[in-house]
């Protein structure tokens, strides 16, 4: 018989709420290989407008749970990646002030009176739906990136996503999956969690993330997990598919147990995905906040949302999607702040490509090249990165001027992981983390 899996059997130490920060400091020598993790120097509170004003961890928002120092990787640092699947349009996300923007987008260009201005920046503004991010911009904790993409772009979603997920090395696993593969011990099941959709970015050669499409459904109904546990297999992941299935059951039983404890146990079907065909960003980030603040060892979370492939009706569609993004991120950062994790979280937003500069005849834009990314967190050196020059296009697209590998290098540096070993080579051209 296989014994019932109970995470608490493995956990000896009990530390109080808010202790995670101290844990992070204690372990900050971590597993860095040649790259020292930049220390988070910010002492500025994130003024997202939704914060209660207190910077003390609140006992009501931090689950009072057990924890183990040994559970945490990366000196306690967490990374959240929000994927905007479909190819978010850069130009309307950060509308340029260049006149050509209006010429090439006669019906889609946002009016100057609609665009939010970004203090210190005179050649672009911010989509009005992203207003919730302005406080982070003003606090110097928001990096906005224009023209990110591969030097030789591919306009296929699938090729481009694959290149992003695998850091342009298509025969290798996801770039975060490689990090998970490289950990000495198999981490806890929720260590790498994909919310909303599967995340090949987190898939390693031997280790798979936990994928939770919607939180309300991640529980057993009319089936006893003890019987499932009896099916489950050895603690190593072979290449045999049956062994992989057995091992997956083992981790699934544990993941459901942990997840129920973290999210409060009795979710209802009301919490199922809000959008037909996909989960919302705000919903995914709300769950991400619960996971990261828990003691289940969740440290890498990918939140996926679809709908950004705006070949038609882009104006209202993108406005709704960016509202979801802006409010979701601001609420998430506020939750991290009140959980005492503001200095332990980096959130980045990615999308497989930007869209064509010229609009098409359907009120949308076709697939393009240079796109939008952003990074937010107290370790981020806020500001505008990259550039858009509408007088110097690449086949009608924004020229890719920032390599995704540069963003990945920063993410890996943040985690204290050897970026060169993970990516093949470092790309220090972006440098959006505060150093020293």
């Amino acid at each position: 018989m296989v014994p019932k899996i109970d995470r608490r059997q493995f956990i000896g130490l009990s530390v109080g709420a808010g202790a995670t920060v101290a844990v992070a400091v204690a372990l900050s020598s971590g597993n860095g290989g040649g790259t020292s993790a930049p220390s988070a120097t910010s002492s500025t509170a994130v003024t997202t407008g939704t914060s209660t004003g207190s910077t003390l961890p609140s006992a009501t928002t931090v689950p009072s749970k057990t924890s183990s120092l040994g559970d945490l990787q990366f000196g306690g640092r967490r990374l959240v990646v929000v994927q905007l699947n479909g190819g978010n349009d850069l130009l309307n996300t950060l509308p340029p002030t260049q006149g050509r923007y209006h010429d090439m987008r006669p019906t889609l260009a946002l009016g100057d009176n609609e665009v939010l201005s970004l203090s210190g920046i005179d050649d672009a503004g911010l989509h009005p739906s992203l207003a919730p991010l302005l406080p982070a911009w003003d606090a110097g904790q928001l990096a906005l990136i224009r023209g990110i993409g591969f030097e030789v772009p591919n306009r296929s979603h699938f090729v481009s996503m694959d290149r992003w997920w695998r850091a342009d090395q298509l025969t290798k696993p996801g770039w975060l999956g490689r990090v998970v593969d490289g950990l000495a011990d198999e981490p806890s099941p929720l260590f790498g969690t994909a919310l909303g959709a599967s995340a090949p970015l987190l898939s390693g050669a031997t280790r798979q993330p936990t994928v939770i499409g919607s939180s309300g459904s991640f529980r057993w109904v009319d089936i006893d997990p003890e019987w499932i546990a009896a099916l489950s297999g050895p603690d190593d992941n072979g290449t045999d598919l049956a062994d992989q299935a057995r091992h997956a059951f083992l981790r699934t039983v544990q993941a459901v147990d942990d997840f129920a404890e973290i999210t409060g146990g009795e979710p209802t079907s009301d919490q199922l995905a809000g959008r037909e065909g996909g989960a919302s960003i705000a919903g995914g980030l709300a769950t991400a906040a619960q996971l990261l603040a828990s003691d289940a060892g969740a440290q890498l979370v990918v939140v996926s949302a679809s709908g950004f492939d705006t070949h038609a009706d882009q104006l209202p569609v993108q406005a709704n999607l960016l509202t979801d993004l802006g409010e979701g991120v601001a609420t998430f950062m506020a939750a991290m702040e009140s959980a005492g994790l503001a200095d332990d979280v980096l959130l980045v937003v990615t999308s497989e490509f930007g869209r064509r500069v010229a609009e098409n005849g359907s009120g949308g834009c076709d697939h393009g090249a240079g796109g939008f990314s952003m990074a937010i967190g107290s370790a981020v050196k806020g500001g505008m990165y990259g550039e858009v020059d509408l007088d110097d296009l690449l086949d009608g697209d924004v020229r890719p001027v920032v390599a995704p590998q540069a963003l990945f290098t920063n993410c890996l540096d943040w985690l204290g992981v050897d970026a060169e070993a993970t990516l093949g080579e470092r790309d220090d051209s972006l440098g959006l983390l505060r150093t020293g």
Partner: protein
Amino acid sequence: MLPMDERDSVKWLHRRAGFGLPPAQMRAAIESGFAGELDRLLDPSAVAAAGAADPWDDESLPYDPMDAPSRRYAIGRWIDAMVATEQPLVDRMTWLWHGHFVSAIDKVRVARLMVDQIRLLRSAGLGDLRNLVRSLTIDAAMLIYLDLRTSTDEVPNENYSRELLELFTLGEGNYSEDDVQAGAAALSGWNFDRGGGEVVFRERRHDDQLQTYLGVDGVHDLDTVIDAVMAHPALPTFIASTICEELLGESDPELVAELASGFAASGFAVSDLVRAALTAGAEREAAPLVLGPLPWLVIAARTTAARVEIPQAALLLRVAGQLPMLPPNVAGWPGGAAWFNAGSLVARANLAALVAADATDVDVLAAAEGDDPAALADALGLPSAGFDEQSRAALSAAPAGRDRLAIALLTPEFMIA
């Protein structure tokens, strides 16, 4: 390991190319043998009859993008039809093509148009590939899903033109960006009537200039595009490889090359390709194939004669990541070990409990009550190797009866065909 014996090859055939069979029907199938069953599954008159037998009632499918009940109805009826099918190969191939020539109801919205696309796959999916690709190109749901209806001479939309080559027929690396643009121009002008779904060609909005497309000069319209695609040397290999991966669980280059040349020689008759692939597959050592949640559920329900409750089953399939008509993107569903993620497995376990609770087949229920794992494996249509030691231990740990049956449906032996 040796190639399969005759019994196991029949079971393999029905789990791969059909949706499994309850024990009594499986015994009869084994009597008729592999060749007899393959002939029966591919019998043209039965295939035609299956295409004509329609699961949907158009009364319940208004041309209304706001009508959510019709979407639930369209999906639920399709699941029901797969479970009840009398001609399983037709429905299995329809499912296969649905994951290949993808459209999704979240973008198409009008359930009737998705249903009409599935009807097309059911009636034409085993026929001539040229006809299938041509019909799908101007299928109303496809015109919406990949935006071809918005493509005009003034502003061509490249979405369909790209996926036609990348995902549907040739594969990445076999075409250029110029081909994508030329295809978008030559395919411009197609749309459909919103009220009744009829496809219309608007000459005014069509770019009729002669293009060079896939190395062919003079391409300017739907038929010249399809001709150039069908004549491309990468097409037979790409389609044969797709069929091999989906039915055999492997794409051995030698086998694919052999099947591809036979497929081209047949004039692209899909039924010939499927017959050749299955015949070759039965003569080889079986490669494992992870059943996605949908084919797994349908096989489980058919094998146990369970009448699954659609609202719950559809909800759980969605959570498991494989609700029909709702593929994640135009590439369809990823397969293999990706299905062993925790979220999908939880939903699959909950589905197993649902199926076990509704099972009615007396042989299956008797085997689940008993303590002979070999008998249970046989009742569930598994090959003679049956359950391995750990699966047997798990089965004996679960209470006899429906609980044990649910666990049996979750064993690696049942989930991996």
